[in-house]
């Protein structure tokens, strides 16, 4: 079935819009007035700015056949089903030639016929599906990542095919050695292995040589140095052996080693790159189009053209585009971006509203105080960058030992060479080589990344995305666990907690009355009544009084719902609400108070259990960092057994608290959800963004919970601990193997092919051991498995 929009097919709507608004270079005009702000023509109107050829040229091209190829960024894509839906729906629209979604980049490439469709049609259709389309900014960094990805893939492909080919020749050679093979055929097999291995070494393994050399020039020994040495020497020695028809060839080891190292690095890089795509700037949260007053008219212009002193129109339900001072109108704004709280702040003429907050009650006219760069939102964004820059990073153990290890291997190899030159100069090269091959730090180099990649994949299966794998190493060492309150420990939505009837009405009747009234409001309180609207009778003449509540008529009787003062105007007998930390809303009709309705933001179902487990089983020190300034926060903290260093904290206060803890030697794990938590998440040693977190918070967290509640925190901790154990086993094995094998090889007791086999098997063992992490849901036996080590 072809999708329908309300009011017919897309093309019809477009025609209708063309008649309704005649565009002049992407700008629409409307009469000026606040009382009768033109009916907001839905999101479609906002997208019409993208029909502006100048703006469209920044993210699309138009060829000579009037085909437009556009590249859009789609917010809200989470899985392959989303890409399917988008592709299906777009491809079924008349005029769309092709639509392809790239899930990794959340990118849509769409081609359409400009004679049939316009750019805003595509945007509007995506918007109606529930996604957030935006122009895809061609960032140099993004381009670079893409190029790098393809380059890695090419190297891997060449190494993989080369490995298979050389491997086949090697099997023939090894079998020939055992069964006896005529030297001419052995020579042939060596000669054909050489060019294949040469391609792999010169093309695929080039990065090892360049990295090793780059660091060596600065006097640093890195893991790539013995890797490059082993590959280089084994390859050169094999060429020598092939030409002189002597010794042993190592082409298969060289190529296999290259392939497995490249594969490990490729998988690691891919997991890291996923979801770090910096497609989410805070600026993206803001509307793309803004209504600006131009003389007697309202013009819709791209937000980036806003200048200081412009008068902007902020409609109900819109996000404030820029920091601005209100000149006309009354409303309330939700500022959860800054303090995480969902109750709006009432604003009127002379007050300042901030970019990124949501206007919930009335239309506003305001004067822009500057451009985006001057806004509080931009400042918050900058502090995110600062927080990320300060984040302490543990140096990988493998990197730390690499220098010593490399020095040790080189020393062992030179000593072996010197000694064997005295004993038997003919064998010196081959024995030295087998020392280098057998001590090749392949297993050591793979030990940590293989375990981390495997743990990350296990977590992905549970609904936790791992952005920073380093965090998996850090997590078991955390001493402090910090929670945000609203949206993290609680659901972040108001719910009706209690109804206190004051007249003879039943609770159900009260709720039904309340729901019928609130149906007309967009305040967060109204959403709490959503589930009670089923059989509620309607009201006439419902009107909203900004900052007070709703008033309405049913027959001749007037009803009111809202603040105490507002309701007492018609029902003076209204008693005071109970004195607790709920939000109380009064409902009354003329002369008769009907009820007090208490709302609160309930805890997530598993919050209590998870917090207790974190404290008792894992011995973490818990703290609550909240922007909520009400008395509820300390009570909640006490009930859950958490410390609370203060409430009503700004993002800066939270960052200061984390810095203070880190300064005193603590390792801090932060769990949050909001825009305001993003700087803290970036600063903390380890951070979690819970399900439903804002995009900015997600981009800053090490772990993003995509599915499930706080229980995932426990799961992640368990996996991180198993991962830590596996890393230790891997490193232990790799070091033991090297330390025992080197003396034997140095003594000349190991034939070179055994050395090559040993090296491959030890790497294989490390990889297999790491894969155990991926076995789904195996419970870990034993009592308290969480030991906090402060070392």
């Amino acid at each position, binding site marked *: *079935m*072809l999708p*329908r929009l309300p009011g017919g*097919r897309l*093309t019809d709507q477009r025609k209708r819009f063309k008649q309704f608004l005649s565009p002049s270079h992407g700008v629409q005009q409307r009469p000026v007035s606040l009382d009768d702000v033109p009916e907001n023509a839905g999101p479609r109107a906002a997208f019409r700015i993208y029909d502006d050829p100048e703006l469209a040229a920044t993210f699309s091209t138009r060829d000579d056949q009037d085909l437009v190829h556009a590249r859009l960024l789609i917010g809200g894509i989470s*899985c*392959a*089903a989303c*890409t*399917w839906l988008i592709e*299906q729906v777009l*491809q*079924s629209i*008349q005029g769309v030639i092709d639509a392809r*979604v*790239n*899930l*990794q*980049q959340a990118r849509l490439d769409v081609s359409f016929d400009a004679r049939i469709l316009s750019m805003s049609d595509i945007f509007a259709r995506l918007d109606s599906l529930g996604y957030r389309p935006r122009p895809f900014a061609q960032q140099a960094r993004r381009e670079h990542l*893409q190029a790098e*990805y*393809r380059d890695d*893939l*090419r190297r891997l*492909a*060449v190494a993989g*095919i*080369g490995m298979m*080919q050389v491997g*086949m*020749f090697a099997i023939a050679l090894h079998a020939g050695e055992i069964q006896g093979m*005529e030297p001419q*055929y052995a020579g*042939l*097999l060596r000669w*054909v292995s050489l*060019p*294949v291995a040469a391609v792999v070494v010169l093309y695929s393994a080039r990065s090892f040589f360049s990295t090793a050399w780059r660091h060596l020039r600065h006097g640093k020994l890195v893991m790539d140095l013995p890797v490059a040495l082993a590959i280089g020497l084994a390859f050169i020695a094999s060429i020598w052996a092939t030409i002189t028809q002597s010794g042993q060839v190592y082409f298969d080891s060289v190529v296999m080693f290259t392939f497995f190292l490249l594969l490990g690095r490729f998988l690691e890089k*891919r997991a890291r790159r*996923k979801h770090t795509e910096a497609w989410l700037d805070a600026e993206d949260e803001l509307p793309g189009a803004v209504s600006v007053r131009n003389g007697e008219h309202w013009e819709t212009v791209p937000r980036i053209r806003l200048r200081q002193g412009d008068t902007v129109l902020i409609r109900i339900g819109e996000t404030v585009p820029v920091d601005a001072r209100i000149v006309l109108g009354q409303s309330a704004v939700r500022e959860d971006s800054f303090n995480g709280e969902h109750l709006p702040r009432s604003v009127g003429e002379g007050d300042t509203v901030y970019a990124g907050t949501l206007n919930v009650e009335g239309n506003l006219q305001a004067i822009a105080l500057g451009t985006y760069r001057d806004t509080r939102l931009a400042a918050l964004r900058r502090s995110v960058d600062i927080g990320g820059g300060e984040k302490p990073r543990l140096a990988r153990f493998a990197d730390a030992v690499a220098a010593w290890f490399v020095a040790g291997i080189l020393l062992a190899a030179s000593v072996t060479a010197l000694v064997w030159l005295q004993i038997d100069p003919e064998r010196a090269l081959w024995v030295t080589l087998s020392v280098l091959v057998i001590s090749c730090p392949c297993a050591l180099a793979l030990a940590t990344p293989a375990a981390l990649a495997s743990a990350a994949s296990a977590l992905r299966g549970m609904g936790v995305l791992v952005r920073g794998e380093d965090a998996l190493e850090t997590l078991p060492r955390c001493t402090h666990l910090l929670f945000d309150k609203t949206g993290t420990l609680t659901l972040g939505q108001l719910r009706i907690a209690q109804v206190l009837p004051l007249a003879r009405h039943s609770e159900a009747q009260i709720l039904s009355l309340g729901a019928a009234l609130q149906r007309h409001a967009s305040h967060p309180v109204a959403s709490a009544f959503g589930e009670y609207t089923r059989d509620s009778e309607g009201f006439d003449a419902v009107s909203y009084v900004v900052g007070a509540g709703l008033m309405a008529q049913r027959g001749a009787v007037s009803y009111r719902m809202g603040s105490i003062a507002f309701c007492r105007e018609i029902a003076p007998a209204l008693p005071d609400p109970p004195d607790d930390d709920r939000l109380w809303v009064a409902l009354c009709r003329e002369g008769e108070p009907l009820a007090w309705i208490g709302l609160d933001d309930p805890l997530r179902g598993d919050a209590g259990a998870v917090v207790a487990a974190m404290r008792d089983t894992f011995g973490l020190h818990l703290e609550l960092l909240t922007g909520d300034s009400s008395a509820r926060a300390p009570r909640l903290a006490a009930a859950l057994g958490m410390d609370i260093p203060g409430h009503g904290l700004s993002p800066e206060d939270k960052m200061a608290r984390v810095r203070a803890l880190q300064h005193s030697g603590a390792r801090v794990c932060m769990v949050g959800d909001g825009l305001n938590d993003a700087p803290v998440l970036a600063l903390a040693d380890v951070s979690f963004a819970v399900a439903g977190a804002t995009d900015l918070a997600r981009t800053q967290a090490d772990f993003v919970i995509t599915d499930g509640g706080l229980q995932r925190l426990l799961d992640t901790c368990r996996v991180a601990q198993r991962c830590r154990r596996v890393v230790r086993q891997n490193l232990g094995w790799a070091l033991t193997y090297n330390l025992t094998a080197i003396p034997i090889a140095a003594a000349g007791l190991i034939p070179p092919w055994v050395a090559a086999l040993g090296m491959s098997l030890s790497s294989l063992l490390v990889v297999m051991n790491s894969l155990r992490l991926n076995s789904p849901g195996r419970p870990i036996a034993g009592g308290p498995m969480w030991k906090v080590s402060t070392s």
Partner: protein
Amino acid sequence: MESLYLLIPIALLFCVITIKLLLWAINSGQYDDLDKEAWRILADDDPAPQKPAERADGKDPNA
């Protein structure tokens, strides 16, 4: 065993062809999104065949 002198070059030729093919696939972007393709098999209802007809008569089948 002389056949090796023929068979091994053939194997190498296949090897070169495979690498060429793979590089072409990578360069043309077929491996850019490894996440989605795994799911593509599950997506049904390819709408593409509908469209030529729809465009030819210029009528909207839903109208």
